[in-house]
């Protein structure tokens, strides 16, 4: 039994300690917003936060999480109120949508660490997240828009 803190709640997992966090979240705890894409850490669809840091949950074993606070897409904001989610909807980013949880978690982590990223910094930070519909131009635009929203909120 492993105790986990996910989206502020304490949850327990019965999975073997070497189970990738991705499968614990998705299939055991049934928080399916985190997506399986490659299992190798090269597509970014499974991105979640551990202590605010974006990680590929397919590459994190259950035993490695420890007391780390996990945030998944469900915990970012369930009714889309986080600035990144708002920007994503305003700019109409998703197409098939399958990679977007990962894109959004990556972007939220970027903006938490760098509230005013340059175009190049956005490109670099988001480059590990594949989108086969290639919504990339709108992703980049939405990251900028979210940064702007966060600034407006701060100044308000």
């Amino acid at each position, binding site marked *: 039994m492993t105790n986990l803190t996910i989206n502020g709640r304490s949850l327990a997992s019965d999975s073997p300690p070497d189970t990738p966090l991705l499968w614990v979240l998705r299939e055991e705890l049934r928080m399916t917003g*985190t997506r399986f894409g490659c299992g190798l850490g090269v597509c970014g669809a499974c991105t979640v936060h551990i202590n605010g840091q974006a990680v590929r949950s397919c590459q994190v074993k259950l035993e490695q999480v420890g007391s780390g606070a996990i945030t998944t897409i469900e915990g970012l904001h369930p009714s889309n109120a986080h600035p990144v989610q708002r920007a994503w909807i305003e700019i109409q980013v998703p197409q098939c949508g399958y990679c977007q949880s990962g894109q959004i978690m990556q972007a939220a982590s970027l903006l938490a660490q760098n509230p005013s990223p340059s175009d190049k910094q956005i490109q670099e930070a988001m480059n590990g997240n594949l989108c*086969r519909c290639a919504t990339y131009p709108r992703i980049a635009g939405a990251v900028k828009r979210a940064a702007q929203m966060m600034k407006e909120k701060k100044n308000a």
Partner: protein
Amino acid sequence: MPDELLPNAGRRSFLVRSTTMAGAGFLSIALPPALGGSDAEAAISATPAYTPSIWFTITPDGVTTMHIVKAEMGQHIGTAFAQIIAEELEVPWEKVRLDMPLESNENFGIYGLAYTVNSGSVTTEFDRLSRAGALGRMVLVEAGAKLLGAKLDKCYASAGRVIDKASKRSVGYGDILQKVKLEKSFSYPNDFKAVKLKARSEYKIIGKSVPALDIPAKTNGSAKYAMDVFLPNMAYGALAIPRTRHMSKVLSVDDSAAKSIPGYLKSVVIADHMNKCMGWVVALAETYPAALAASKALKIETDPGPYGNLSLADIKAEFAELLDKPEEAANWVLEGDVEGSMTGADKTLDVEYSSDMICHAFMEPINCTVMQASDGSWHVHVGTQSTSFARMTLTAYLSMVTGKKQEELSVFVHQYLVGGGFGGKQDYDDVLAAAYCAHELGRPVKFIQSRESQFAISHPRTPTLHRLKAGIQDGKMTAMSHDMVSGWMGPRFAVGKKFNNGTDWLQLDSWDDKKQDIDQWSVGGSDHWYHVPNHRVRAWNSDRTTWAIQASALRTVSNSYNMFVVESFMDEAAHAAGRDPLEFRLSMLNGKGGNRGIPNTGYAPGTPSDYYLDQIWISLPWPTDKSWPEYESGTVGGALRLANCLRVAAGKAGWGSKKLPKGTGMGLAVSSAEERQSPTWVAGVAEVTVDTTTGVYKINKLTIAMDMGIAINPENVKAQIMGSALWGAGQVLSERLDYENGLLKQTNFHEYKPVRQVDVPEFDIELIQSGRHPMGVGEPASTIVAPAVANAIFAACGARVRHMPITPEAVLEALKAAKA
């Protein structure tokens, strides 16, 4: 069966009239038997909800739910369909919802074929959905007028209310439904004929960029893909990667190592009655990680079959040999005297082009969950491009597995959001495998392809080889010959008479009296819209390739390689003729002869490339009687519309006027994908910078102009154009699939490389809303990028690369050749 397993169960209440479709063809692609007009009639709900036709239901709360039979896979088709219906129905957009009808034998008789391909959804359904909306409105206005005590001719509908012009009083649709029992329903197609539709100038919702209805669920994790299905007592399945892509045979399975994995249940050799899962062994376990680990721990002895030593080099060698055998070719286009006019030409151009395999690599790996309910019915949970074919294929398969007759089997397919399709989610091998496992285990099974097994069993675009020849006389192209060889995907879908005893739907006869079969899906795009008086296209089928690699359709199908070839070649011809590539193209896009376009759909002048095949992709068949008001053909205007797009794109990009630094060039391309009879007119300009020391090139900017007639949702059209253009960029820049000893080689995204954020160029997109019949926008722009980039590389440094993808090494080699 438990109702919670049937998300759409409630909907069945109003679908009381149905046609039994027992005995319908089960093959991957087959048409439903003729539904015979009124058989497709929808009926009335027992509840106050009002369903005047099968496409939507209005409830007393004023909510309109649109029933969408097309797969939602990134194109936001539900939103587009809802816009079309809402426009004529006059319902407020904020009260529009979507659902997806359950696929069943019964519903198939009502909704027809659920199949999403060919960029054809809006094109083929626009007219019918408009009429369905208008009919619903007419009934509501009539009922509203009565309630208001007003004269019918003084009443009109707007935003979900019926308004009396005289008294200015109004009543909402919801109120009408609460007060009046509406019983009028409309049979398709008979009642649909007489409807008067709005003038396009009156549109309020069509042409407006309303936010897509499926997006909010995709930003908070609540969107449901098939991958997110859980059923009681469900086990997991993972595929042990077969020894070869096709025709492996399992001799023995040793699972002694797998047995030590906690949760391992058993391994199952999939009974392969339909040659779709050959050599498949699935490990079953209580969890997916355990199933995956077990799949790798199985020791499987295999007979690799006939393709065990086959590699891409062998395929290429066979291609070259085939092109030397004219007697085995089928003519796709044959106009004028090609050989004769070549002989008389001032100058000829004679070159070879080729393209590699690529695959769909959708972000959601193929997965499927199947259960047999306590009543014996089968339930498939899947995100697929065709729930209908999934059901038919599985019904036929289960008949072979269980020995029961097809009509004794009850199969339901529950559709989910599709995490990327691109032509690659229409094979149903996953459905068969999951069902067989569920049958063997006696429990529901969730079968998930790992990324590695997904690549190994992918259905790639065929490799191709082309020989092209042009005759140039007085600076004009007087003759063009295009010979091409590839694996034909049509035969694999079992649709040619040659391959399927008498079914002759998609396999067309060749142009001339040789009457050989030809696979339109493998040659489309070569029948371009340039006026060349002597024009021949010949095609060869490498049947071995088709089966060995399991060739399939990939976004625009053959256009995705043929436009690279044709548009690169046109550029070469322009240079050979000593003319500017823009001016050269425009002079041939003159709309003469067959390139003028045709006025109405259904028109078949008798040449293979003018066959009207869109009938295949629509859900319900179009009536064939002449009284039906045919919708306008997308080909109207012909090559002149393509020329217009080219002028716009070239002008916006600054063709011939923008000063470019050394090493930077511009290239042009036009395309009419997807098929000649269903064109979306698009032109593009790529601006590319080449580093001539390394051969590395960068796409700086893409300027694209598209005439899709009516843009239902312009901002979404732009998103589709950007996404598909970047798809095209991937196939010229970096995507490539290799085949060695019977196996597809790339295993994951570190080896197979779609474009990423850093590859994105600047975009300038112009929508030309000509007001013509709306055409599909999800694919066509993907075809122009590769040739425009190839032509820009040539303009930048003189390197002509005739193979796709274009690697830096190939650029350097071409540079060397140019200097020699």
